[in-house]
């Protein structure tokens, strides 16, 4: 499991993607902070309300986190299945360890990218935004587990690239619609969305963690039943 984790982490971290991700997060958060500064009162008394940089970062992660994760890791499983490198992996370790190892590797990559971005932002905000950092990690790990599930469910990387983009665009829109509407036909969707629990805050933030575990279990279940 650790071997796969570090292999995945290294293959993501070695490329130009890392610098690009850190640059995008840092640059966008910095620019968004200017805009968010005008809405500080509406954002309440938490870290978001006090710090425009925290608000800028969270907006970026919440709206585009799934998009970034999908862009980098939509084919993390099916690419190896279609190129047949997966055949080497499954003969040497269990399928459960492959899924968990991949999840951990991608999570480690994002944790490091976010940490560096938050560290850079802290030079402007004059404090490290721990709460926002933790919420970002929770949301990103949820996104990783969702993208892993898609990568297991669809065998072709071209399909997951397309479906990942569609999902990344639709998912936040539908989630916020479900949170805002009183229409019972739509509003139930909010319970399936991590956005609702991040919006509620407090201990509800643990719900996306449970959903992450559930999605991972579903990925393992599907992966164990597939021919490679």
């Amino acid at each position, binding site marked *: 499991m650790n071997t796969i984790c570090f292999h995945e982490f290294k293959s993501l971290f*070695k490329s130009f993607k890392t610098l690009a991700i850190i640059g995008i997060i840092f640059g966008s958060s910095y620019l968004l902070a200017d805009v968010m500064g005008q809405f500080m009162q509406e954002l309440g008394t938490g870290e978001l309300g006090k710090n425009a940089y925290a608000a800028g970062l969270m907006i970026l992660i919440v709206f585009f986190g799934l998009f970034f994760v999908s862009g980098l890791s939509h084919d993390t499983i099916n690419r190896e299945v279609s190129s*047949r490198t997966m*055949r080497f992996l499954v*003969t*040497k370790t269990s399928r459960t360890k492959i899924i968990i190892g991949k999840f951990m590797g991608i999570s480690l990559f994002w944790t490091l990218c976010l940490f560096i971005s938050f560290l850079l932002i802290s030079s402007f905000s004059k404090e490290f935004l721990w709460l926002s950092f933790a919420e970002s990690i929770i949301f990103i790990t949820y996104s990783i587990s969702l993208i892993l599930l898609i990568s297991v469910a669809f065998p072709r990387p071209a399909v997951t690239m397309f479906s990942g983009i569609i999902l990344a665009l639709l998912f936040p829109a539908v989630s916020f619609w479900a949170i805002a509407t009183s229409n019972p036909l739509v509003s139930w969707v909010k319970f399936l969305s991590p956005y609702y629990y991040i919006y509620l805050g407090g201990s509800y933030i643990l719900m996306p963690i449970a959903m992450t575990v559930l999605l991972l279990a579903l990925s393992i279940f599907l992966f164990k039943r597939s*021919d490679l």
Partner: protein
Amino acid sequence: MDVIKTTSLRKEFGKQAVVNGIDLTVKQGEIYGFLGRNGAGKSTFINMLTGIILPSGGEFSLFSEKALTPEIRRKVGVLPDYSTFYDHLTAIQHLRFFSSLCGVKAGKKHCLETLDKVGMKEQANKKVGKFSFGMKKKLGIAQSVVHNPELIFLDEPTSGVDAESAIQIQELIRELNRGGMTIFMTSHNLHEVEKICTRIAIMKKGRITHEGTMDELRKMHNSTMNIKLVHSPLASPKKEKSYAFLSKFSHNILIGPTETSVEVGTEDSIPIIIRGLSELGIDLFRVTADQPSLEEIFLEKKGSPQTADKMHA
């Protein structure tokens, strides 16, 4: 000890049965050859035993274990039918990565020794993206043995490699087997299977049609053996006596002035014939016996019925 045991193992893709109820036992120390044409189900069979695909029915055990536990995976090495690697990693990085997956920490020295066995030591630090098909095949074999398994599955180990490398791989297989490793291999190369396998199964349309050692297959082949005798010139009385003597063994006798050919059922007749002709005062200069090759058996069996006709040692 049974290293591999399958019972009614089956794999269906849709309504098509690719592997159709295979019962097979491979004992420790064997080099077991699986022979069949494209689409016969050889790779599917190996893929089920190694966890790449899931059986539709039946069961199998490796080292008497029905599940592919981490301990069993450590004992097994696999060369799948298509060897694709990570282009950005070097040969030695691959070996370290794969052995680490099995829970074995292979040092640089051991990895280099393994690469040396397949003639790839000089390519140890080159990225696999630049490797030819043959080099990837050799690396595939190296990764299958780097963690010192007790059993290796080799799916077409010499296909796509040059003749010299094929001989090197065949020699490696023999060497591994001499070291106690059990080998289960598939091949299209009949000559190769005949040369190195201690036991052979012929597979057709998902079933084993014939199984046994080379000698057993020859016996099952039910063919005759052609003996050619080069001798001193035969005068008329000796010729008649020779014919009378050889008629005890065969109805197909062709006696020439200095060469005679006889078709016999078994090789047991050869020493009796030699002794008998010598007693008749015929000087024998050369005796050759042609047995049917695996290719001849395989080609004959291709049209045989789909019933399992196995012969156990």
